[in-house]
């Protein structure tokens, strides 16, 4: 089971450690640093590292590494899921999961970690249970606490802990009863050089914000549930009902949570709302070239597209760029990328001249420019085999 946890920031400082069994020396992290060095890029650090006596399983979230130490055979997914849950909880408690936030609330962090895991076994990970045990810090509460001497640790057993619905606490009361559902869909697509779709699928989630009194029992039905290829449910959803009637029936947790996530991958159903064209050329006998990219809405979609962001990851050999967007603004990060955020465009034409440091690398440059296009109602990415993302939030009551 999970033995210890180290939080490490980007510059390689271990700024928090927590041990659930015996104390493991910080030196175990050296193996992690070694792997990090080898990986060059922070995102490329392998998530499972074996050392002579331990295994290190890590995640990278919000510029922090959560490195857990385990000693016995444990399902790695279990550890990774748990670490993400820890990060989610920090986010939930402190508004952000950053080194500063954690250091500012180190005692709460420690109390939380102790509450979440006992001897390596997860204890309470549901946010509403945790919040009953340890109240999130607010300015008002700290003022009240300092006056009354009360603490932010709950002294009764959380009500939901043992019920069949651990995600909901009893006795919730609201004057305005309301429930919000956000349907967010992302199109994830790979489009080849000629502009035709190689692969496209929709990743969708329904996030809910429920503020209802008592024990509400909700059901939600879809117009055409057969479209969904695969669904993952929050534990509150009654699976049998879904199997038989394709209706989502559930007693919701209180507050924000992700109700379901789903996937639609049948390609003919996934329509990409924009088109992208590009052109790359090199000047003869010089190390310069020209890269044009054109993005515009597809005619048949009938919706306006806003807030397009194009991100182009240039290979390292590119030394400098001159950018000329037809609309919007741009920035160039000399380390890796170009990011011109463009707004309200019907059609964008971006021209750039770039300098290739070395001869002979052109070929590899040509077909691996990475372009990520984000739009406000949607989010996308492309070029010669680059993915698209599209997002469209709906709000309904």
């Amino acid at each position, binding site marked *: *089971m999970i033995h210890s946890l180290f939080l490490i920031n980007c510059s390689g400082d271990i700024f928090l450690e927590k041990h659930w069994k015996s104390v493991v020396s910080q030196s175990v992290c050296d193996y992690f640093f070694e792997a990090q060095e080898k990986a060059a890029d922070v995102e490329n650090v392998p998530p499972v590292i074996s050392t002579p006596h331990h295994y290190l399983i890590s995640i990278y979230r919000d510029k922090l590494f959560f490195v857990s130490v385990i000693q016995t055979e444990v399902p*790695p*997914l279990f550890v990774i*899921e748990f670490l993400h849950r820890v990060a989610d909880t920090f986010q939930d408690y402190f508004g952000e999961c950053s080194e500063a936030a954690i250091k500012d609330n180190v005692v709460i962090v420690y109390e939380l970690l102790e509450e979440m895991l006992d001897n390596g076994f997860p204890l309470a990970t549901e946010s509403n249970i945790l919040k009953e045990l340890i109240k999130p810090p607010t300015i008002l509460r700290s003022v009240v606490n300092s006056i009354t001497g009360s603490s932010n*640790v709950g002294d009764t057993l959380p009500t939901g802990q043992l019920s069949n619905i651990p995600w909901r606490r009893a006795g919730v009361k609201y004057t305005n009863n309301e429930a919000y559902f956000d349907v967010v869909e992302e199109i994830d697509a790979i489009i080849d050089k000629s502009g035709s779709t190689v692969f496209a699928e929709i990743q969708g989630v329904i996030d809910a914000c429920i503020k209802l009194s008592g024990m509400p029992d909700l059901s939600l039905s879809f117009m055409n549930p057969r479209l969904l290829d695969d669904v993952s*449910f929050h*534990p509150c959803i009654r699976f049998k009902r879904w199997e038989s009637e394709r209706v989502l029936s559930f007693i919701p947790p209180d507050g924000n949570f992700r109700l379901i996530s789903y996937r639609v991958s049948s390609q003919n159903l996934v329509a990409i709302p924009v088109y992208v064209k590009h052109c790359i050329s090199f000047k003869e006998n010089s190390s310069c070239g020209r890269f044009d990219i054109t993005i515009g809405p597809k005619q048949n979609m009938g919706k306006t597209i806003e807030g397009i962001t194009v991100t182009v990851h240039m290979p390292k050999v590119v030394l400098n760029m001159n950018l000329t967007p037809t609309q919007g603004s741009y920035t160039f990060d000399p380390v890796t990328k170009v990011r011109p955020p463009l707004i309200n465009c019907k059609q964008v034409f971006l021209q750039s001249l770039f300098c290739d440091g070395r001869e002979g690398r052109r070929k*590899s440059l040509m077909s691996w420019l990475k372009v990520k296009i984000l739009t406000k109602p949607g989010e996308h990415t492309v070029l010669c085999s680059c993915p698209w993302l599209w997002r469209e939030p709906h709000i309904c009551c």
Partner: protein
Amino acid sequence: MTDSKYFTTTKKGEIFELKAELNSDKKEKKKEAVKKVIASMTVGKDVSALFPDVVNCMQTDNLELKKLVYLYLMNYAKSQPDMAIMAVNTFVKDCEDPNPLIRALAVRTMGCIRVDKITEYLCEPLRKCLKDEDPYVRKTAAVCVAKLHDINAQLVEDQGFLDTLKDLISDSNPMVVANAVAALSEIAESHPSSNLLDLNPQSINKLLTALNECTEWGQIFILDCLANYTPKDDREAQSICERVTPRLSHANSAVVLSAVKVLMKFMEMLSKDLDYYGTLLKKLAPPLVTLLSAEPELQYVALRNINLIVQKRPEILKHEMKVFFVKYNDPIYVKLEKLDIMIRLASQANIAQVLAELKEYATEVDVDFVRKAVRAIGRCAIKVEQSAERCVSTLLDLIQTKVNYVVQEAIVVIKDIFRKYPNKYESVIATLCENLDSLDEPEARAAMIWIVGEYAERIDNADELLESFLEGFHDESTQVQLQLLTAIVKLFLKKPTETQELVQQVLSLATQDSDNPDLRDRGYIYWRLLSTDPVAAKEVVLAEKPLISEETDLIEPTLLDELICYIGTLASVYHKPPSAFVEGGRGVVHKSLPPRTASSESTESPETAPAGAPSGEQPDVIPTQGDLLGDLLNLDLGPPVSGPPLATSSVQMGAVDLLGGGLDSLIGGPNFVAPPAAAVPANLGASMGSGLSDLFDLTSGVGTLSGSYVAPKAVWLPAMKAKGLEISGTFTRQVGSISMDLQLTNKALQVMTDFAIQFNRNSFGLAPAAPLQVHAPLSPNQTVEISLPLNTVGSVMKMEPLNNLQVAVKNNIDVFYFSTLYPLHILFVEDGKMDRQMFLATWKDIPNENEAQFQIRDCPLNAEAVSSRLQSSNIFTVAKRNVEGQDMLYQSLKLTNGIWVLAELRIQPGNPSFMALQLSLKCRAPEVSQHVYQAYETVLKN
């Protein structure tokens, strides 16, 4: 007002100041001080000096302060065991607190204080808490047992906590059940032998019920526990699968993968003909694909597991190729894994898409990824023959890019393509040769040299090319040196006239100037070959090479089956069994897939038997429907077969055909080859099928005129223990000679050669009469049958048991040892018939205490049948009497070492299907009696 203030230190000496604050009267100040201490602790600062002061703060009503002190205690108690005792009283008191939260907290913390002295105080409170009325306390206490076990295993056993824990599996609260399972699993892991999780259908049912109601983490524990259970038949497996399937839609990916593990394992037991099997296959694909849209770390673990699943059951994801296409923002470790799976899924149907993708990847910027992509193109060519042409032209395009590492990688794979499709793509050699100068990696250089050597006759300037490599011979890596040596020898054999000088040069370089023994040895061998017999040299060096197999990097089937049992664990990420890497090697139990056992007969067809099931389809299965057949076969055992009496029998379902086949083989003599599968009617049940294989085994044994009973071949040496070599065999005795019929199967991925066999000394001096002759190298998945003649003139040593034979088999990989028991009747000699007088005299002569009595049950044979059957195994009937309606047979036999055994066999009349034979044996060496009895039983019952 943030906690970061706790990190600020004053100049005066931090510890000193904290000490003062901790001893302050003001509650608020105390709490602040403890917080400061905790803050120092979180960054790994040593604050153990404050131990007594912090422990003093423990007696408080303030829960937050209490929790903080507990946090401190857990970290430092171990360094101050004597001080830690001070805290015990408070813990014991807290365990009685009316508030369940505090009771649970106390027992939880106490378990975390890893001090031996505390454990004895812990027992009583823990016992109470395990029986607490509040489930929250019970579930915390369950975990505490695991903690205590970690500190003092003996204590836990002595106190009977394990039994209490087992009782908790039947608790009414699912959370308690889940924690009990988790605790038991952890304890069981350190004691693999103990049968802690005694799983039976009842407890499985309880777990399945709890599965629906407990938390996501509890579900993982329960699913992992379920995966260790072996259902008794396919119906049970199916019903468990049905109840586990809903977990595939869980939002927690660890739950999903654990459910996949259970399903993959139990699927092994389901017949492929079931509708449910197909449904299950369809249900498995979507959740696996969905795992790929999670965070990259989760994707990585999922991909490593999918890699295993794709190898085991490619049908699950065969239509999902596109989801494995690499995205631009995948981390490199995800990209590499996706690439691997893409190649595994590549087939004729999707090869065009795959190639187009791979070509894109080959122009990426990440070097590792590009290399792997280029290699992948080569692997596609080898795997999908129809695509080879396109792959080769893609590779040529890539070579044209002149990007150094792309070219090198391409050359390495083109070498493999040449070996798979010889004489097909040699036209590209010219292009390859152009890039000779840019090669700087040993593998690429070696590959190029191999190509030049292999096709020396088609390359005009081959000698020049190789000579250019020779200049820096000593700076090359061994790989290149060896290749260069072989290539030049090849060249010489092909163009002897103009390259004599070159070959002299390389041979002297290799033999005289090198200190690498491999190189030197190879040099000498070539030299001598060339100087003594150039024709032989040609035959050796230019021999036709075996084609390389389709997939070079598959996991060996036995390992794969084991790894399937470990889906979702570290083993599945490393693709190694836990025994290979788990710390301390605590005697990890090997897991294996369950063999398929059908509750209803004859639903399976023989060819669907699970390939890797270790015990399900061993040859020693006794045919269930084969009784009739068995009888027929026994008829067969009689000396010369005169006409086909069998054809008239009433056996249905094409048995006539089968036996006809068997007879043909009899005529065919000992070189009997199993008839092609087509001769076997497809509607035969599996059990019938195994009866059949017995039949063939028998007939091959009976091929020569007379012979004793031959047991079906049993696996003596499983492939898992012998690096892929599987040996099964049996013993036969035919007209006075004993032989050992062996079947060698190569289940590894490499060719096996150089077989040899040796016996240890044994009770009857059995020894091989000839060396083990395996004529051709044994290529992967090939099986050979060998009959090894034995004699009994070897050295003698009494073994325990008497008929134990220890065998060593050697091949080019290693030496393997196994032991087997031989049936004693192979030692019964042909001249074992005593005359009557002699028999009587000897019987009287042997003292009565040497007599042994045995009973042979369920032998529905009459005296004549018994007598004739035994006679064929050299047990001779000396006389026959009928006493009070019972047939008495007096029999004698002689062993190879001259020991006589006398027998009296009493045949009880009565219900023919329930007849028992009384056997009395007399012998001067009574220890053989037991084995003679076993021989009787085998001969009579088969």
